[in-house]
């Protein structure tokens, strides 16, 4: 084996440029394949586990997926609103441990504004499962005042700081012509949670209702909140309610009660299953990406074959010399296969760098778009299997050139006959 490595090392050094170019193509192939596997697995895990400690989402009658994407991942539009009375009912249900109301409909430069109560402070969790923390000098809002607590990404990208003020824009998409008159003061910035709430602004629910232009339809009729008058509960409405349940059995019961028997609302439970359904439905896309990545690996292996094949003619004398020195045919064959495998293995090592770069870029994009953080240091069997697979493919690509080397006529290639 030492001799094979010795021969391969010298040949690779001698054909350094061709080796580098070929290894680079293998590196790109390995990096791409690892990124496809890694991002698919990590994104799925991040989205399925990104419910911030909540078990279910209650919302208007409609799609469970839309409800979860809207309430948990801040991605979709709200399927509609539910009356306050329903929130009161589930909040007081003995099967429910915690209920956090959300009202959405405004934004600040595209970052969603969530009207909620202070229950959010204790109920939400960061990606490590720990309670939310505020940056130094911050506090949570007073429910009676126009105050806001801002997520870390929102603060960084909008430049909002504690003591700063802002005026919300109507709607979920940013439209400069739709700015509200009310001025909110930032009283706290959340430390990064690595969840979608890094991309929101929390304001008191009462204040949200009272923003000029907001119309409530909790009772079925339109109600415009009046200054200095309490808002009747029957007129209030919510976009969704995040629920923590006391047991899985509670989930089964409530699912049956709300989704099967009821006609007013939808319970998305469990959140992980709803997201799993989404990823399963998108599975075909991932399979195509994996197939493309595999094809790129095969192309890289073909480039190794071509690179070695092109040098075989000029290397016939080299093989003849090796044979004349006592190398067996199988040694010469194995040395070329080893050389091909080494090029692929070099590429596989480089593939980790390419993977790191691709993952870094893609993870940044996912975080910027959703707030979800994918872990760059997670382990997945593909991290081992793909580089090994590339090395094996490379070795197989070396078989044809190796056969050419194996078949070299020794006497005819040593030197001219005298």
């Amino acid at each position: 084996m030492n001799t094979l490595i010795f021969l391969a090392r010298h040949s690779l050094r001698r054909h350094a440029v061709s080796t580098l170019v070929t290894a680079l193509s293998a590196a790109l192939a390995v990096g791409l394949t690892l990124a496809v596997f890694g991002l698919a697995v990590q994104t799925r895990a991040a989205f399925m586990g990104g419910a911030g400690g909540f078990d279910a989402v209650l919302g208007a009658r409609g799609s469970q997926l839309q409800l979860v994407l809207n309430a948990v991942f801040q991605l979709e539009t709200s399927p509609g609103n539910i009356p306050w009375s329903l929130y009161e009912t589930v909040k007081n249900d003995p099967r429910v441990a915690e209920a956090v109301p959300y009202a959405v409909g405004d934004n600040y430069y595209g970052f969603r504004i969530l009207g909620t109560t202070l229950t959010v402070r204790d109920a939400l969790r960061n990606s490590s499962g720990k309670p939310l923390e505020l940056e130094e000098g911050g506090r949570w809002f007073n429910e009676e005042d126009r105050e806001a607590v801002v997520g870390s990404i929102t603060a960084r990208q909008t430049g909002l700081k504690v003591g700063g003020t802002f005026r919300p824009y109507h709607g979920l998409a940013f439209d400069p012509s739709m700015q509200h008159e009310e001025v909110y003061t930032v009283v706290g910035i959340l430390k990064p949670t690595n969840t979608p709430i890094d991309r929101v602004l929390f304001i008191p629910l009462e204040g949200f209702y009272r923003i000029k232009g907001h119309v409530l339809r909790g009772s079925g009729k339109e109600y415009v909140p009046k200054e200095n008058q309490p808002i009747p509960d029957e007129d209030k409405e919510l976009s969704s309610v995040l629920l923590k349940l006391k047991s899985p059995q509670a989930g089964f019961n409530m699912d049956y009660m709300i989704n099967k028997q009821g006609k007013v609302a939808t319970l998305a439970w469990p959140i992980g299953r709803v997201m799993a359904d989404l990823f399963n439905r998108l599975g075909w896309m991932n399979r195509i990406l994996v197939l493309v990545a595999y094809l790129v690996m095969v192309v890289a292996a073909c480039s190794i074959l071509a690179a070695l094949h092109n040098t075989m003619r000029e290397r016939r004398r080299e093989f003849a010399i090796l044979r004349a020195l006592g190398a067996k045919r199988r040694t010469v064959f194995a040395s070329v296969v080893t050389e091909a495998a080494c090029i692929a293995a070099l590429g596989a090592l480089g593939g980790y760098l390419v993977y790191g770069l691709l993952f870094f870029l893609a993870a940044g994009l996912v975080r910027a778009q959703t707030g979800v953080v994918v872990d760059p240091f997670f382990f997945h069997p593909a991290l081992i299997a793909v580089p090994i697979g590339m090395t094996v493919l490379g070795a197989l690509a070396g078989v044809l050139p190796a056969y050419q080397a194996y078949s070299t006529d020794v006497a005819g290639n040593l030197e001219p006959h005298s």
Partner: protein
Amino acid sequence: MKVLEVKNLKKSFLSPGGGTHRVVDIQHFSLDSGDQVALAGESGSGKTTFLHLVSGVLKPDSGEISLDGKRMDLLPEAGRDGLRSKLLGYVFQNFNLLQGMTSLENVELAMRFGTGVDKERAVSLLKRMGLSERLHHYPRQLSMGQQQRVAVARALANRPKLVLADEPTAHLDHVRGLEAVTLMREVCREFGAALLVVSHDRELLSHFKQVERFDRLNRALHAQQGVAS
């Protein structure tokens, strides 16, 4: 003790126009341990083919080749490769050093196929050849004479019983050629290896006490001359 014994050795090649062309036909040839023999012959007389047969690179059509008492002609190719690496050293006309390897690595390479890498011995061989300052030089960085000395060191790497040298002075000037042959003879004597040199260089041949004319040895040439006449 005979290091090399050849009996009724025949080798033919296919002719371009069809049929076969006999290149080697030697009834008997032998070398004793420590012998230093030169085979004199013109280009195209079959000397290199004879060396390839003796070294097992080519398989004879018929006849016997015994190396240190072992029948080379009866062995399969892999066996001949093994015997060649252990019992023979080969100095080629063009030296045939591997260009991507240093002097030291070229010598170690031969050891890898024979007795195993012994760096100390490889270094001492190169030093004996006067190359102590050229151990880590690549062939392109060496003069022709230095390349030839590396080739000799490589031929002696596996403590061979017999060193074959094919036109060893062909690429050297007169003075360097004589120096090379003298050194080759000295080191073969020192390391206990018999030496068989084939050449058409009269100057080189004059340094050997034992010179055999290949055209007398090789009956294939007689046949050709007979046909021609």
